[in-house]
């Protein structure tokens, strides 16, 4: 009898949680609809995601094949001209979206996971381990993050995964600190204390009450992290630390810089990727900003808080 009751109870909590998520998603959407710029940013990001999943439907040519002479200026055959070995720039740009977005997504996720573990453990459990983790976070704030990324990407040998890891290690401190503050304030809420008094174990409180509550803020941080990760990828690739066989916006800039497109005035090779990086970052920042304002109203008017 009792077993059945507990089972029912769990199911109810689960269903209730799903309801709550649905509600908060609908609320989020309602809030977002009122922000024109955020909506626009969301649409452009979705377009980029679609392009990066199905580049073959959009690209006119194979980005790795020679389809014309070197440095052909933009024409009707090649809308953005060709690069130094005669590859179509537009196709490279479209295929490059995939790697840039993928690295951005991977590193933002890794950074979020590290930040979440550090923030939740040190915010909820505190104690020696929590203190130590926060000290480590402070230490990583002191280490200049872009040189750190360079050193990591350099020592780890270039590939998609190591580049993502290097970027993630460069940017994880911000989500860690934000989530730490959030968990710290959640921990003192009356309903958490009540659960503790009722004898619910710490782990259960963490999984049932704290982490679901901190999820929206983590989500906003993830979007902002993407806005950091994409230019970081471009920077590292431009220095020459990416996998040379993979086309990304950053590596296009690298080739334009190294192989003379830049110095002989072939602007169509390096202007478009730069503009795309710029606009993508703006889109992620506006969306992340909106998400942060909606999920964490305390931070209103703080502007580009997560710089």
């Amino acid at each position: 009898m009792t077993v059945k009751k507990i089972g029912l109870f769990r199911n109810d909590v689960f269903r209730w949680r799903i309801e709550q998520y649905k509600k908060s998603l609908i609320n989020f959407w309602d809030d977002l609809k009122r922000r024109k710029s955020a909506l626009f940013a969301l649409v452009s990001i979705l377009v980029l995601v679609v392009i990066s999943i199905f580049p073959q439907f959009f690209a006119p040519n194979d980005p790795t094949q020679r389809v014309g002479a070197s440095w052909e200026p933009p024409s009707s055959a090649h809308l953005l001209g060709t690069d130094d070995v005669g590859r179509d720039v537009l196709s490279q740009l479209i295929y490059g979206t995939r790697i840039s977005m993928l690295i951005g997504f991977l590193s933002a996720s890794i950074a979020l996971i590290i930040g979440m573990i550090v923030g939740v453990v040190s915010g909820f459990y505190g104690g020696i381990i929590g203190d130590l983790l926060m000290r480590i976070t402070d230490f990583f704030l002191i280490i200049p993050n872009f040189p750190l990324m360079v050193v990591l990407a350099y020592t780890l040998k270039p590939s998609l995964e190591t580049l993502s890891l290097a970027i993630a290690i460069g940017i994880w401190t911000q989500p860690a600190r934000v989530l730490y503050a959030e968990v710290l304030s959640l921990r003192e809420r009356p309903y958490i204390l009540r659960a503790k008094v009722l004898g619910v174990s710490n782990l259960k409180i963490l999984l049932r009450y704290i982490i679901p509550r901190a999820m929206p803020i983590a989500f906003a941080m993830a979007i902002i992290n993407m806005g950091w990760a994409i230019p970081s990828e471009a920077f590292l690739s431009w220095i020459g630390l990416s996998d040379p066989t993979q086309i990304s916006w950053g590596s296009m800039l690298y080739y334009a810089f190294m192989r003379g497109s830049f110095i002989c005035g072939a602007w169509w090779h390096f202007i478009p990727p730069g503009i795309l990086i710029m606009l993508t970052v703006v889109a992620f920042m506006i969306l992340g900003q909106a998400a942060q304002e909606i999920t964490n109203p305390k931070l209103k008017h703080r502007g580009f808080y997560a710089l």
Partner: protein
Amino acid sequence: MIKAFIMIILGAVFSFILFRILPGDPAKALTGDPRLPLETKKVVFKMFGLDRPLHEQLFIFICNLLTGNLGISFQYKLPVSQILMEKLTNTLILLIPATVLSMLLGIFMGLIAGLFNGKLIDKIITSIATLFWSTPSFWGGMVAITIFAINMRLFPPGGMLSFYGASPSLSNIGDLLWHLFLPMLTYGIIFSGQYTLILRNSLVEVLTEDFIKMAKAKGHTDFEVVMKYALRNASLGLVSMIGINVGYILLGSITIESVFNWPGIGRLLYDAVFYNDYPLLQGIFILFIIVMVASMLVVDILYSYLDPRVRIK
């Protein structure tokens, strides 16, 4: 001070770990050639002290660091600390005016945007600042060179002086300024974006507070209110942001110097990656950590000057 010192030592240990223990080991890079006989490898290992246990190596490394010995660059065959000292002046020649320019621009634009909060001019300035903020600085440099150096031929496309290898002195200061102008302007404009946004947002926040109403009630004009009361409070946010963002300023030094071929620390880092120069990269990394820690100290002091509440503590 002691805390700062401990931070630097910890940073050095961290970079030791990064460079020695991660898969890309310089010792392996040095002796990785399979044709190298085992005896030679052993001799090389002994020469560089790599046969000793790690903790002993770490100890030697820290001792060397304290005496300013950062090893010998593979590429230049000179002591790393000597190269760093040479290039540091060049970096400061570029970075100080450029940072000052970016901050002045940022403060100016942020002030206007904050004053006209919500009006059209605020929206224009914020969007421009957002665009600047998200421009990759190396790309901005490439665009600037294409327009002003290659097409219009107004400024040199790169370098610090017309004669390669010349060192800056009073006699060629005109030449230096001519080379300095474009990188400084590019840096100043691109990096002003973040200062604009930070100052604007903290100004908007401060202007809603009670003491501003009080100042207005006292009969100060709007201009006086902003200059005397709001700006000082808003600059707190700016100063603490700069402390955190020294890493960002260093990024600017890397990208702008690399694009404009400015012979400074940033360009050195770019070259160190290009030529696989392990000791040099490590030296630059440690130098950057020292700069970060030092600037944190400076920010703390500035903060206590601007905010009397901190001083009392």
